[in-house]
């Protein structure tokens, strides 16, 4: 057995003792020198002649066999060279055998050391050691062989040689393996010792020890067989060597595969048992790698969770484990490998990669780099380095590649597990933080606890939390994990800095190098900040706050942190919102309770003063403020201070009930105008107040709340709040507004109650006045009583009543009461023209009471009246009924400064209205009396008029006369008459006096009388009417006139002589139905000197009918405002030519009645029909 490479040197105690030479080298040197000295000594001892040619053949044979040796382990080679060497011993003796062993071993060694880069001294040492060891093995074997009776050269071959041969073989084998085991022990320690025996011995027993006795056969063949047989035997030996080599190679490969599989299996089991523990995995990987190949420098780098973070859990530099971080060069090596991970086997330093030296104290001659990849992504790196060239072989690379793949998978799995574990732990932490913060209901505590929990749980440098008001674009600091910032707070402008930008945009902001970020705003208390993560707190896309996390490391935040913090931010946002809602509900409940208390307190009060006193007492109790004032609005746009609390009695006394002129306090004017709550510095109000009220006001602000009732501001509640009291502003304003509304409502109710009481009092007073007026039998007595009541009910010193004389257009004094004696003469039946008294002139143009006082007295009253009245205030109320001026009620006050209040003015106005009604009623009563009297006169006139009208138609043989008469009013203007002129002639008159009524009746009577007189005194119809006209004109003064149709009928001849004075033309219906209008010219009588009358003569034949009528017949109108009309009349009379005159009249009357329906007659209805009998 021979080794192909020296084992990897390692420090040992022996090396430290003997100095700089390694023990293995020293041992090899000693063994080699000893062997060479032994070989040299053989030349000194007596010796036989050697067949040099045969020895040379054996040397060549030994060298060839050596070269055909099989490497069974990385450093050990097996061959049949022992058979050749021992055969040479048995043939040529110790010297020949030593020559063959020395030459064959050295040449074989030289031939196997084919690496060109091997150093000469290493080669020389190997040759020295190999040749010397072979000589020693041979000499010991020769000594054992000779001592046990072996013969050289071989003779008498038999079983007696068996012990000598076995002893020589065992000696040769033992020396060989002991020396090589010693070198492994010296280089690799006990592990090298154990690994040598475990790797080499099983093969050595079969391959090297067992064939050794066959050296006897080879020797015997050389000595006793022919050369051809010997050659054949030698060839057979070489063939067997080749076969064995191939078998050994296969066996070694198989064994290596099995070992690798078992190694992988063991590594896999170990990795499974190690679990996700990174350091345990790395330790296992190191142990397995060391089992495969020893290297003085072993570094295992792995990549942690962050992309660029690389650690070295195992780092052994030159056999020394490192406890600190490996030198920077290792990171450069990893970064060099990262872009293109690949296995790298370097056998000499000329092939070293171009990165910086790795910090080894000794120069590196060979290296093996094995990347740990998952899906072609580098997650780790195994680096082995050695100062010795060719320290790592291809087999090492393959074996480590398997370990690397297992390690990569294990590390990847561990990383995944670790990340999941981290995420799980973070989620647990989030849940824990969320659970804790969710249990906190107080907002301040919530914020404080949240930053503490987050900092404690995640270990950040600084944690702070802010609330965001997007409507007002404001970021408010709430809590910080830094005590300094927590104490002083911090201001974050909207949209500026990382926090301001996150608050305005609602986006997460992650800056891993704040020193190079333009938006980062440094805080003096946080100088170590290097990274910052700002996460907005959102509830349903509504930004409620910002969580700010700061780290003192660059690149401190990754995607995982962002994810975790967003999840945490959601939990915190919900907790904040819940807390806000809880606080809002609490505030709402408190507000409701406060308002209920306020409502309960004021609702039980009746008077305004009590309500105000209660309000100023409740406001400090329910809102916590110290001072308040209540102002009530006045009618003149001004205010009056009515009550307050928080001031001394002297302070309030200086202000209470003092009127505040309009527009002197801008804040009150604004509140009154806008009707909204206003906040202002105290100077807005208090600077206008008297100094005693404002002198002790310190740092306070003013809030003014309107008192609104039915949409109208009736006052202002002003409260003073400490300027630094920022808490509870919202609900305080709500409570104040509620109290103000309750107060306003209560005040309004109180006012309404007082107004109702006043109205009731006024109504009672007026009822009293009305009762007096109604009970008094006459107006004079009523006025006398009322003028006495006025001072009693209104509180005036005196009163008087002036009545309006419509005919004279003057006022006259009717009644007075309470006036001074010298002033009574002003009222006793005195007449005053309005143009003489400006007050009365103004009164006539007014419907409202007028009050004059002071200097106005001289302006509105004549000086003598003003002096006589000696009154400071004078009130005049017009007495009007239906806008008609009836008089004036006058009242005076003699006390200066005293005025009649609104309520008393109402009573005065009511009394004036009652008096006016009484006067109007009296006037109506007088009018009614006059109308009744007139009606009686009309009835009498009607009777007289009816006496003028014929009650029936005259009887004339051969003629039929019929008539109908209805007056539209009591006394009509129509009339008809029959005048018996002589035995043959009958005058027929139908007339219509203009206008209606009594005047018309009188004119009708006059006309009838004149007509009768004219008819008797004249002959013709026109002559009669002209005479009548002249007579009427003589007495015409009223512009009245009369229309007349006068016909003189000759009953025997049937001749009808007629004239028409503006009257409706009669209808002449002939017996054949032909109808004509009888319309001779002529104007009405009583107007013109010459009415232009023309007389017409008509011959009435038997059956002819003459229908005379007034306009009341044809102008009768129906419900549709249609006139009956001449055509309708004409159709009636022409349609009944055979009817009698009576029937004709009834038909016409019925037709007109049917036409007008229920409508009363508008004008007098007069109808006169004459018909000549058919038989005449």
């Amino acid at each position: 057995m021979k080794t192909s490479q020296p084992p990897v040197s390692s420090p040992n105690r022996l090396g430290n003792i003997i100095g700089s030479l390694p023990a293995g080298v020293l041992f090899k040197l000693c063994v080699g020198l000893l062997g060479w000295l032994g070989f040299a000594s053989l030349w000194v001892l007596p010796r036989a002649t050697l067949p040099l040619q045969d020895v040379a053949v054996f040397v060549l044979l030994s060298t060839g066999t050596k070269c055909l040796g099989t490497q069974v382990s990385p450093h050990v080679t097996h061959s049949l060279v022992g058979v050749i060497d021992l055969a040479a011993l048995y043939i040529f003796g110790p010297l020949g055998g030593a020559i063959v062993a020395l030459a064959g071993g050295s040449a074989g060694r030289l031939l196997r050391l084919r690496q060109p880069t091997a150093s000469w001294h290493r080669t020389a040492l190997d040759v020295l050691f190999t040749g010397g060891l072979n000589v020693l093995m041979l000499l010991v074997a020769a000594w054992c062989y000779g001592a046990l009776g072996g013969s050289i050269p071989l003779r008498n071959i038999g079983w007696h040689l068996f012990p000598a041969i076995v002893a020589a073989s065992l000696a040769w084998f033992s020396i060989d393996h002991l020396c090589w085991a010693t070198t492994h022990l010296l280089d690799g320690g006990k592990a090298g010792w154990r690994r040598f025996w475990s790797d080499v011995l099983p093969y050595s027993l079969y391959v090297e020890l067992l064939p050794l006795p066959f050296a006897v056969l080879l020797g015997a063949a050389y000595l006793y067989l022919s050369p051809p047989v010997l050659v054949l035997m030698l060839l057979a030996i070489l063939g067997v060597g080749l076969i064995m080599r191939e078998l050994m190679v296969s066996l070694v490969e198989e064994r290596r595969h099995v070992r690798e599989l078992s190694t992988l299996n063991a590594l896999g089991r170990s990795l499974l048992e190690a679990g996700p523990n990174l350091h345990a995995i790395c330790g296992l990987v190191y142990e397995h790698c060391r089992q495969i190949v020893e290297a003085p420098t072993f570094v295992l780098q792995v990549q942690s969770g962050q992309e660029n973070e690389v650690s070295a859990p195992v780092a052994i530099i030159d056999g020394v484990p490192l406890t600190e971080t490996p030198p920077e060069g290792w990171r450069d090596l990893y970064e060099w490998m990262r872009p293109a991970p690949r296995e790298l086997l370097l056998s000499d330093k000329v092939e070293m990669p171009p990165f910086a030296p790795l910090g080894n104290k000794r120069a590196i001659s060979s290296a093996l780099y094995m990347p740990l990849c998952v899906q072609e992504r580098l997650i780790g790196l195994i680096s082995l380095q050695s100062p010795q060239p060719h320290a790592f072989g291809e087999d090492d690379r393959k074996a480590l590649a398997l370990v690397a793949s297992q390690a990569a998978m294990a590390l990847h799995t561990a990383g995944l597990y670790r990340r999941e574990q981290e995420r799980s732990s973070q989620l647990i932490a989030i849940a824990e933080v969320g659970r804790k913060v969710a249990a906190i209901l107080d907002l301040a505590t919530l914020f404080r606890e949240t930053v503490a929990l987050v900092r404690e749980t995640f270990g950040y440098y600084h944690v702070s939390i802010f609330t965001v008001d997007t409507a007002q674009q404001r970021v408010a600091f709430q809590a910080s994990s830094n005590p300094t910032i927590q104490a002083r707070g911090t201001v974050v402008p909207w949209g500026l800095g990382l926090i301001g930008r996150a608050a305005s945009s609602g986006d997460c902001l992650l800056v891993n190098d704040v020193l190079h970020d333009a938006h980062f705003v440094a805080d003096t208390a946080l100088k170590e900040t290097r990274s910052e993560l700002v996460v907005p707190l959102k509830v349903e896309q509504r930004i409620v706050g910002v969580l700010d996390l700061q780290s003192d490391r660059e690149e401190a935040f990754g995607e995982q942190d962002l994810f975790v913090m967003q999840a945490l931010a959601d939990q915190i946002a919900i907790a904040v919102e819940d807390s806000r809602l809880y606080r809002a509900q609490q505030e709402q409940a408190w507000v409701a309770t406060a308002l209920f208390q306020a409502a309960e307190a004021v609702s039980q009060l009746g008077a305004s003063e009590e309500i105000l006193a209660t309000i100023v007492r409740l406001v400090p109790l329910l809102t916590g403020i110290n001072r308040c004032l209540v102002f009530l609005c006045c009618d003149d746009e001004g205010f009056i201070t009515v009550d307050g609390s928080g001031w001394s009695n002297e302070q309030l006394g200086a202000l209470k009930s003092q009127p505040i002129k309009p527009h002197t306090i801008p804040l009150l004017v604004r509140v009154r105008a806008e009707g909204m709550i206003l906040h202002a510095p105290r100077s807005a109000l208090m600077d206008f107040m008297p100094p005693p009220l404002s002198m002790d006001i310190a740092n306070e602000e003013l809030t003014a709340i309107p008192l609104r009732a039915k949409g109208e501001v009736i006052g202002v509640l002003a409260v003073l709040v400490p300027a630094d009291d920022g808490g509870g502003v919202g609900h305080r304003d709500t409570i104040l507004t509620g109290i103000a509304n309750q107060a306003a409502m209560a005040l309004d109710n109180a006012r309404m109650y007082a107004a109702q009481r006043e109205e009731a009092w006024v109504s009672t007073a007026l009822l009293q006045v009305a009762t007096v007026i109604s009970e008094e039998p006459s107006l004079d007595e009523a006025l006398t009583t009322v003028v006495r009541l006025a001072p009693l009910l209104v509180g005036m010193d005196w009163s008087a009543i002036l009545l309006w004389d419509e005919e004279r257009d003057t006022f006259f004094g009717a009644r007075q009461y309470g006036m001074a004696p010298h002033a009574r003469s002003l009222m006793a039946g005195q007449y005053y023209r309005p143009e003489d008294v400006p007050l009365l002139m103004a009164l006539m143009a007014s419907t409202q009471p007028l009050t004059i006082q002071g200097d106005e007295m001289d302006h509105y009253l004549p000086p003598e009246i003003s002096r006589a009245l000696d009154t400071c205030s004078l009130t005049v109320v017009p007495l009007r009924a239906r806008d008609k001026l009836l008089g004036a009620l006058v009242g005076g006050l003699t006390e200066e400064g005293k005025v009649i209040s609104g309520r008393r003015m109402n009573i005065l106005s009511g009394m004036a209205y009652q008096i006016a009604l009484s006067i109007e009623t009296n006037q109506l009563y007088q009018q009614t009396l006059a109308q009744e009297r007139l009606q009686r006169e009309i009835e009498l006139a009607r009777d007289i008029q009816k006496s003028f009208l014929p009650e029936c138609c005259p009887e004339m043989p051969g003629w039929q006369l019929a008539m109908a008469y209805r007056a539209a009013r009591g006394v009509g203007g129509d009339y008809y008459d029959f005048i018996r002129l002589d035995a043959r002639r009958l005058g027929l008159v139908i007339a219509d006096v203009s206008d209606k009524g009594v005047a018309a009746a009188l004119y009708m009577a006059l006309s009838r009388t004149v007509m009768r007189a004219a008819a008797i005194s004249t002959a013709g119809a026109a002559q009669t009417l002209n005479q009548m006209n002249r007579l009427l004109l003589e007495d015409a003064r009223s512009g009245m006139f009369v229309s007349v149709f006068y016909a003189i009928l000759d009953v025997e001849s049937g001749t009808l002589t007629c004239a028409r004075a503006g009257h409706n033309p009669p209808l002449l219906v002939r017996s054949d139905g032909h109808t004509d209008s009888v319309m001779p010219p002529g104007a009405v009588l009583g107007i013109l000197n010459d009415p232009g009358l023309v007389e017409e003569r008509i011959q009435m034949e038997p059956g002819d009918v003459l229908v005379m009528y007034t306009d009341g017949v044809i102008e009768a109108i129906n419900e549709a405002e249609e006139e009956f009309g001449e055509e309708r009349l004409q159709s009636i009379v022409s349609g009944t030519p055979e009817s009698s005159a009576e029937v004709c009249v009834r038909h016409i009357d019925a037709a007109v009645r049917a036409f007008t329906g229920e409508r009363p007659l508008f004008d007098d209805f007069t109808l006169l029909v004459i018909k000549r009998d058919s038989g005449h």
Partner: protein
Amino acid sequence: MSMGQQPCEPSAVFPLVGRVDALTSPAISARLDALQKVHRGTICVDMAQTTYISTSGLRALLLAHQRQQTTGGRLLLCSVPAKIARVLHMCGLDRILQSPEGSGSDEDISAPGQ
């Protein structure tokens, strides 16, 4: 006195609307009287919308005519509907109450009391 075909240049126009009868004529007369106190020239009574006139209405117009004549003015009827014109003609008052169109003859009214 003859007004002939002189153009109507009324100093005032008095609209007479609807029915002029015993009920409405007192008020119309009062209004006309008030107008005549102010306008002493020519007053044109616009009868375009007069639907009916009774003897009471005729009397009111005659009285107004007399008053206007007394003060040297004139009272003219304008836009007289045919129906009203027929009534005026029937009564013979178209000789007194003239229209600017000159449908009636001009004639003196007997002075009151004469």
